[in-house]
């Protein structure tokens, strides 16, 4: 579904990715793990067209490296950004509506309403808080809203950046379980970036380990969980943070 070849990405004069090749098959949950600054978020941003990039990104057989972020969303790729980046002063309802922004011209109101129902079905708490300002929600609810907003664009590929950031372990578990449900029921494909590598590897099918802008290891998530270098470098610390609830 997503094929990336020799991808370079830059922030000003800094090279954040230097020749990354990876792929995501339809229906897969793939996670990117690595230390801070390894290039995980950059990779998501590069797919969405949010950073300067070179190389080949092909989505469903179509090269998207030259497209604008809007055009990329329209093709079916949505991102749930790190730190949620909700519109804090707007209500839950307005935030969700913005997620469907690009669809208003092409899809009927009825369709959009159906998708909204689906989001409420996944996250019933959002329905209860429809007219509440997003900024007043708890961390977990904000994350649900961010996912819900991304789903309103009706993506086939969902890019998720650090969904567990700042959340209690139980909430993280719920959110990851919802992701699996989305994949199971909706055939959604997910590319996940997680600082909490252990939690991510438990829900993912496969994983890539990034180190200073290069992929250094890849494989089935279960194998990476057992990899002693991965355990030492990325699981030990995270696990502690995870169990201590950060």
């Amino acid at each position, binding site marked *: 579904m997503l094929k990336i070849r020799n991808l370079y990405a830059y922030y000003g004069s800094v090279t954040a990715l230097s*020749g*990354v090749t990876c*792929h995501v098959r339809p229906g897969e949950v793939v996670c990117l793990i690595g230390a801070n600054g390894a290039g995980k978020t950059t990779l998501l941003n590069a797919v969405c067209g949010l950073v300067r990039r070179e190389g080949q990104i092909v989505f469903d057989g179509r090269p998207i490296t030259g497209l604008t972020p809007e055009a990329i969303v329209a093709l079916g790729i949505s991102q749930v950004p790190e730190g949620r980046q909700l519109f804090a002063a707007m209500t839950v309802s307005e935030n969700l509506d913005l997620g469907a922004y690009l669809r208003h011209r092409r899809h009927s109101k009825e369709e959009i309403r159906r998708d909204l129902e689906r989001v409420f079905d996944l996250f019933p708490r959002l329905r209860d808080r429809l007219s509440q300002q997003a900024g007043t929600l708890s961390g977990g609810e904000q994350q649900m809203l961010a996912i819900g907003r991304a789903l309103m664009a009706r993506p086939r590929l969902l890019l998720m950046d650090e969904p567990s950031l700042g959340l209690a372990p139980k909430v993280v578990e719920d959110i990851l379980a919802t992701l699996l449900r989305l994949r199971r029921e909706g055939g959604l494909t997910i590319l996940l970036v997680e600082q909490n590598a252990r939690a991510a590897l438990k829900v993912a099918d496969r994983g890539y380990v990034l180190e200073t802008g*290069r*992929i*250094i*290891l890849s494989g089935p998530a279960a194998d990476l969980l057992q*990899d*002693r270098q991965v355990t030492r470098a990325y699981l030990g610390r995270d696990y502690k943070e995870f169990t201590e609830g950060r």
Partner: protein
Amino acid sequence: MRQPEFEAMEREELELLQLERLQSTLTRAYRQVKFYRHQFDRLGLRPEAVRSPADLSRLPVTTRDDLSENYPYGMFAVPLRDIVRIQSSPGTTQRPLVVGYASQDVKLWLGLLARLYAASGVTPEDILQIVLPPGLANWRRDLQAGAEHLGASVIPDASLSFAKQLMVMRDYKTSILVTTASLARHLLTVMERMDLTAAALSLRAALLVAAPLAREVRREIEAGFQIRVATAYGITEVMGPGLAFSCGQGEGLHFSEDHFYPEIIDPESRVPVPAGAPGELVITTLSTVAFPLVRFRSGDLTSLLAGPCPCGRSLVRLGEITGRTDSIFSVGGIKVHPDQIEALLQEVMEGFLPRYRRRVVAEEGLEVLEIDLIVAEIFFSDEIKALEGLCRRARRHLQENLGIDARITLKEMADVG
């Protein structure tokens, strides 16, 4: 097919998978193995320079001597505490060959062996008997573990006499025999002596390993046992037998390209040959963690056969092994370098290396190394006993160090001519 998602993968997808694994292997090798870092730096290259598998040809090759120079742990890409197996074999240089396995490597290795068995038609219902010489201890262990992983009932090699091996084969109702071509032929001659016919056995197929299988030998064994013969290609440096395997339908051996990248180069110029042309097989590991090999020269002369195979696998096929680029030769599946023979003879002769002739002969199918030592004055002795002792010592020395059977005779200069 055990893993159709990889064995019959669309070529385009396979190539993307190869590229991503190749790039991560090169990055790990560069960052974690001094030898490779020096090799890259010497040419002013970084792993990033490889943007497609074809770019590999810009990198230098790795040889058995390189492995020997970095003996024992210099080629390992993970700390020793992550290594779960340190596999040794006599190798073909003065030092043992050392290969490290991390736990994922063991898993990969088992998967490749199970893939090979499945392609050979072996199923969990089979009773599989392994008959391999002690000199092929690594192959014994590899093939035993792989068959157990597949779920077959395995009869490991128990160092029985050949007659007892055949008795086991008949009485235990062995359905699959795993051995070398040399031993299979020998077993046929022993069967004849025992008046045991193929019909009395339950044998269905044989997997012949450790040495290239000549067509006529294959036919002879198939006819003798009235079975199908499968074969495999592997080298100890690169995870043993699971590298390439026959499928029973198309020509050649399917190369596990999802985990190893094959190239064929001109052994002289080291330049890749055009597609399909013969040359030396060079292998780059794509998935191994502990012991990445970048462009390892196998020394085997062969070619790659592209295009679809009736079995449905898309993996490229290794053609017939037609020879070697170096003087390494095989005695019943055990690889030997002439330098090793000379060094060992010299040790027995207290530093003196006599002129000698050697050849591999088959005695009742069994491959034996025949060495004629040319008698020179320096150790000419009327005491026959002393000379016989010398031959015995040399024979034992070769057996102990290389695991090969040798027959050593003294020849006078006049006999040799």
